[in-house]
């Protein structure tokens, strides 16, 4: 089986196969000799799904903080809609992870809700970027833009994952992410190339958040194992196209790309900034205080 055929067989049958997507697939190489033993691959799929699910959930929660507070009703709706899409993606990823994980010590199986509400900050493996506070609309948009550009590159490759369930979720989420990207990139340009004040704030946000982008492309053990098993793309191959995309928009927005830093945050290694704990405390308060509460 050729590498191409291997990727194709993992693609969802309805995915729009256009030239870009196929080119992206070539990057997500299938390596037949590198599939780890069943048990290992099981863990990798689970860990990888949690990483993506945690990232979507934390960002959805952050965006949700804007509801009722955004600068205009249209932006209120937009941020809530993006949050909703991310929450939907989280649910699919968590359901998948819950479905393949081993039962707990008491024999009980965790549900998607357990994964969202009953894990602490030291168990979350989200990207550090998405847990950063909203600060102002500019920070929120810059954070969203940097993430959307990354997620776009990721999902275009992940839709050809050898793991069918992840490929299907990616193909579905990709359609939504294209919209998110158009929204956030549009605002980066409008505000960056806007008034003196909006430009200043956007540059400040970019300077503050750029340091967290290093982690987006530094693979950890899970990323590496997932890439080796052709479950996920090789993160290193995503940086150049991501940067090209980002630089083009920043140029249009008259914003200066900050200098790269060597230090990488490691949210996906459970080493978080101080902000995640408080976010989870608020999000999980109800289930922690009234376990099993429903409405």
């Amino acid at each position, binding site marked *: 089986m050729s590498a191409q055929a291997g990727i194709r067989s993992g693609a*969802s*049958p*309805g*995915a*729009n196969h*256009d030239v*870009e*997507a196929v080119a992206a697939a070539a990057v997500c190489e299938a390596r037949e000799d590198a599939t780890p033993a069943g048990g290992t691959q099981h863990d990798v799929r689970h860990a990888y799904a949690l990483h993506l699910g945690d990232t979507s959930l934390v960002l959805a929660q952050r965006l949700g903080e804007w509801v009722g507070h955004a600068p205009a009703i*249209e*932006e209120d*709706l*937009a941020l*809530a*809609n*993006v*949050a*909703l*899409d*991310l*929450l*939907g*993606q989280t*649910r*699919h990823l968590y359901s998948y992870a819950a479905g393949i994980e081993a039962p707990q010590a008491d024999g009980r199986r965790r549900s998607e809700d357990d994964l969202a509400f009953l894990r602490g900050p030291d168990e979350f493996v989200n990207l550090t970027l998405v847990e950063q506070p909203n600060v102002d609309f500019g920070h929120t948009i810059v954070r969203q833009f940097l993430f959307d550009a990354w997620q776009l590159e990721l999902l275009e490759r992940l839709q050809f994952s050898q793991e069918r369930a992840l*490929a*299907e*979720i990616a*193909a*579905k*989420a990709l*359609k*939504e992410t*294209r*919209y998110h990207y*158009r*929204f956030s990139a*549009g605002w980066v340009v409008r505000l960056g190339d806007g008034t003196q004040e909006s430009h200043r704030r956007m540059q400040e946000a970019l300077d503050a958040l750029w340091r967290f982008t290093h982690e987006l492309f530094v693979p950890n053990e899970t990323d590496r194992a997932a890439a080796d098993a052709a479950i996920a793309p090789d993160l290193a191959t995503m940086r150049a196209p991501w940067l090209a995309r980002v630089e083009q928009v920043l140029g249009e927005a008259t914003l200066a790309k900050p200098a790269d830093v060597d230090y990488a945050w490691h949210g996906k290694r459970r080493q978080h900034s101080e902000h995640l704990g408080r976010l989870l405390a608020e999000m999980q308060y109800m289930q922690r205080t009234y376990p099993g509460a429903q409405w």
Partner: protein
Amino acid sequence: MREVPTNAPQGTQAAAGIEEEVLRLLEEVPDPEIPVLSVVELGIIRYVRVEPGAAGQQRVVVGVSPTYTGCPATEVIQGAIRARLEQAGHREVRIDTVLAPAWTSDWLSESGRAKLREYGIAPPAQSVTNVRHLFRDPTVCCPRCNSARTERISEFASTPCKALYRCSACLEPFEYFKCI
């Protein structure tokens, strides 16, 4: 209308009859957010199957695709489908969530598009078969006066599937069913 694939076990006459009946019933189940559209016209029904259920009963299985992953209407729709089928005497109903291939606005039926326009919502303006269309702004015609002089107010609107537009000719704001 897009053909909904059916898959009768052993091709029995009875099963095929039930499948057709279920499909007719589904045409009476409205989308909770856009009630002029049935779930069939929305293009989210992927298959109807009849298989042997518990205690000699027939089990009806309906495959449903979400329009957007986080759309809160998804669960309401599944509840409405179940309720309609149970009301018609189908005691055992299973609803499968079908993610792949991902739902696309191309699957809105012709009658669905016409009903959307009548209801005041502009239907999707172009096919998404070519991915590049998603990065270009389509020409959206006003559902009231049919003018092409319209402008987008917001990429997002009251439900995940719509964007907000305004007509420069008749000055009315309207919602547009996004291409996805």
